[in-house]
């Protein structure tokens, strides 16, 4: 097995850097527009400024990250498209998605305290989002159970599909149940945004910037997965044994013994 060259090519590495830079600039612009340029809301006052990041991180977590993980899992389970590429991409998407899911819950909680008077309520939207986090944390835990790559990929794919059932529940929770959480601002049933002018543009910029940040994180995390698979494939053990048996000097410090070198690989899955 070799490392996946599709993520090592200079073009992909250059694209990753550009996307990262654009994400940084976009996020910086969003913060500037969101905190200093856009006007306060008639009802919520300055608290409305949280709208420029909270729905953006939720969009990335729910629809991009977990949606992508579900799609990749389906592609892995489909015999014609079965490839460990999809499994690795799903794992990368879930890890990044979990971080964005935590950001969603925290920013929502910070918004909830001055608006509802509480940090947390067992509201349908909040609870289903928290359940989503627990489900995908379970997915990541499942990936750390030792198994052959194909076995791990198969059971992870089923777990991702099971967890992804909660995504539409989170989305429609504000319609299906009477909740504290407001309805959708942009993706509402009429598809007519209830936000306009500079506020709408800043919201859109926030979505774009956070989407770019997600793509950058996904590419870097995928590369990490490819490198971990390479090091965990047994070639590392063989290379180290060959080196030691031929007396080619002390083993390089970061590698240590074969077991030491494998430990962080297993721990990071």
């Amino acid at each position, binding site marked *: 097995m070799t490392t996946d060259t599709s993520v090592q090519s200079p073009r992909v590495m250059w694209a990753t850097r550009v996307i990262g830079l654009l994400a940084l600039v976009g996020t910086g612009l969003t913060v500037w527009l969101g905190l200093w340029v856009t006007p306060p809301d008639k009802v919520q006052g300055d608290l409305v400024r949280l709208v420029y*990041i*909270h729905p953006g991180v939720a969009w990335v977590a729910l629809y991009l990250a977990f949606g992508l993980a579900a799609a990749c899992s389906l592609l892995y389970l489909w015999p014609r498209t079965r490839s460990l590429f999809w499994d690795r991409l799903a794992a990368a998407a879930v890890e990044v998605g979990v971080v964005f899911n935590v950001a969603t819950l925290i920013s929502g909680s910070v918004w909830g305290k001055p608006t509802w008077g509480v940090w947390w309520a067992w509201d349908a939207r909040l609870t289903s989002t928290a359940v989503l986090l627990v489900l995908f944390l379970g997915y990541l835990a499942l990936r750390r159970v030792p198994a052959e790559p194909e076995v791990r990929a198969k059971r992870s794919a089923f777990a991702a599909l099971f967890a992804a059932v909660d995504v539409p529940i989170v989305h429609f929770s504000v319609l299906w149940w009477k909740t504290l959480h407001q309805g959708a601002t942009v993706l509402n049933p009429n598809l007519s945004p209830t936000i306009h002018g500079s506020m709408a543009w800043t919201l859109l910029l926030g979505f774009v910037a956070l989407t770019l940040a997600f793509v950058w994180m996904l590419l870097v995390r995928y590369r990490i997965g490819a*490198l971990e698979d390479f090091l965990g494939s047994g070639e590392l053990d063989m*290379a180290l044994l060959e080196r030691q048996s031929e007396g080619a000097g002390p083993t390089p410090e*970061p590698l240590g013994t074969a077991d030491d070198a494998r430990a962080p690989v297993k721990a990071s899955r």
Partner: protein
Amino acid sequence: MRYVIAGYVVVLTLLFLYGVQLVWRRRRLNRLVAQVEDSRSGDLAEAGPA
């Protein structure tokens, strides 16, 4: 306004720290793979042509 600032700080710090951690992990693994490949190519050169 302090809740707004707190929300921005927490979210952006979380994403930034995760990003830094990703870069650190990638660099570490890149170094590790380069060391393994260097040692293997060195061994092959010592063995000479088959």
